[in-house]
């Protein structure tokens, strides 16, 4: 009897040992264990291997932990990298987990992590908006949009982000214009096409705001101002020795731009008839178009408001 008990005990121990060993070899547990110890490279290696298993790819939990591991890598080493691959891998993994795993807790966790990472995307998109990195800013904002919609499909909330971003984008283009004034005329000539492209991009950015918010005063005013300034610059940049036919061509182009500017400033004026900058813009355009009666009228309104 004693002998049988001893044998049974040994069998039980072997069984426990095999279960423990099987548990230790479960790659997901191994990956989690590495993650908990902070061995992110090892965790990444194991989880990347795991998603090559056809069964594991159907497991939302595997994708969730993959997302978590990549998010940790992003936080540890790639936080300053606006094009971080780990952040993208993390977002893709959380998205995949969200699509597979419908349990309440996992959905909430996935959404929380996506929200965190999209926030970093939005911040990076905004801080990329300068004269050098603005294209990266636009690409990053598109990524933000794609993932933000997973956690908040409300168009109204996204609209606010979109307007702020477009406003910033438009002002970047405008700043590039402004900086261009200091450039030598021969470079200006070479940059002519680039400037026309930037004008179009800025106008597009503000036009999108108008679609989202049809009474956005600053968008109307900014488009009007961009056209006006672009036109005025065509004259400002001319050399005194410019011949008359070239001067006439410049006047034609300038006045076309002034005409394009007018409806936007008129609309901005309708939205807010007391805004000094809009009144000054209208006074300037009509003056430049040699329509002095209208120009004087806006000057009169402007003076009245300034007296108050």
């Amino acid at each position, binding site marked *: 009897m004693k002998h049988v008990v001893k044998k049974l005990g040994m069998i039980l121990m072997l069984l426990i040992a095999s279960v423990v060993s099987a548990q230790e070899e479960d790659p997901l547990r191994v990956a989690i264990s590495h993650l908990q110890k902070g061995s992110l490279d090892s965790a990444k290696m194991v989880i990347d291997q795991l998603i090559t298993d056809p069964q594991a790819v159907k497991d939302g939990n595997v994708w969730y932990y993959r997302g978590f591991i990549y998010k940790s890598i992003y*936080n540890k080493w790639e936080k300053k990298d606006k094009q971080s691959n780990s952040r993208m891998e993390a977002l893709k993994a959380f998205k995949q987990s969200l699509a597979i795993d419908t349990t309440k807790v996992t959905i909430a966790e996935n959404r929380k992590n996506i929200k*965190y990472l999209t*926030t*970093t995307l*939005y*911040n990076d998109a*905004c*801080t990329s*908006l300068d004269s050098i990195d603005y294209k990266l800013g636009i690409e990053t904002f598109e990524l933000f949009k794609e993932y933000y919609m997973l956690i908040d499909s409300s168009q109204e909330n996204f609209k606010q982000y979109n307007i*702020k*971003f477009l*406003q*910033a984008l*438009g*002002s970047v283009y*405008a*700043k590039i214009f402004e900086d261009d*004034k200091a450039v030598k005329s021969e470079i200006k000539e070479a940059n002519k096409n680039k400037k026309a492209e930037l004008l179009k991009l800025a106008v597009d950015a503000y036009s999108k705001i108008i679609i989202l918010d049809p009474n956005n005063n*600053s968008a109307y*005013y*900014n488009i009007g*101002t*961009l056209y*006006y*300034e672009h036109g*005025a*610059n065509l*004259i*400002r940049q*001319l050399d*005194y*020795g*410019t*011949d*008359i*036919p070239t*001067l*006439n061509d410049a*006047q*034609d182009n*300038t*006045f076309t731009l002034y005409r394009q500017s007018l409806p936007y400033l008129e609309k901005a004026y309708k939205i807010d008839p007391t805004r000094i*900058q809009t009144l*000054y*813009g209208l*006074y*300037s*355009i009509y*003056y*430049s*178009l*040699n*329509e002095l009666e209208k*120009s004087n009228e806006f000057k009169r309104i402007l003076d009245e408001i300034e007296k108050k």
Partner: protein
Amino acid sequence: MKKQIYILLSIVFITLGADRPEETNAKIKAIYIYNFTKYIEWPESYRQGNFVIGIIGSNNTLINELNKMATVKTVGNQHLEIKNISPTSDVGCHIIYLLSDNSMQLAEVMEKNKNKSTLIITDKAGLATKGAGINFVVQENKQKIELNKSNIERYKLKVASSLVELAIQVK
């Protein structure tokens, strides 16, 4: 691990350039005036000393623009000099520009300069038929010039046919 979204430091309203609209119009006129010095020929005796442009009337923006031009351009070997003068001034000018507010003084200016070689420029409709050589006009919102060839030649000045062709001719 909550991260705050940046408040964008974007420019909500773009500002208009520092230049006033008067400056753009003044620039156009300055370019025209410089062209006149290339297309009109003054007698030999006028080709020494400074090339003087006299302004009758008050328009600081225009005078500043012409002064800017004078710092970077010459007429042949002659330096440009911009002077604010009175209609009865004895200053020998190559060009006299009578601003619109002073248009009534055209006859006086013509009388004072009848024996000189001075191009008289005005800035009011109809004055090219009343003695001005060149008159600035606005046509289809654009700055153009009316030119009266005989009024220019009366002052012993030669005008190039290419300038005549570029202008609205008035007789």
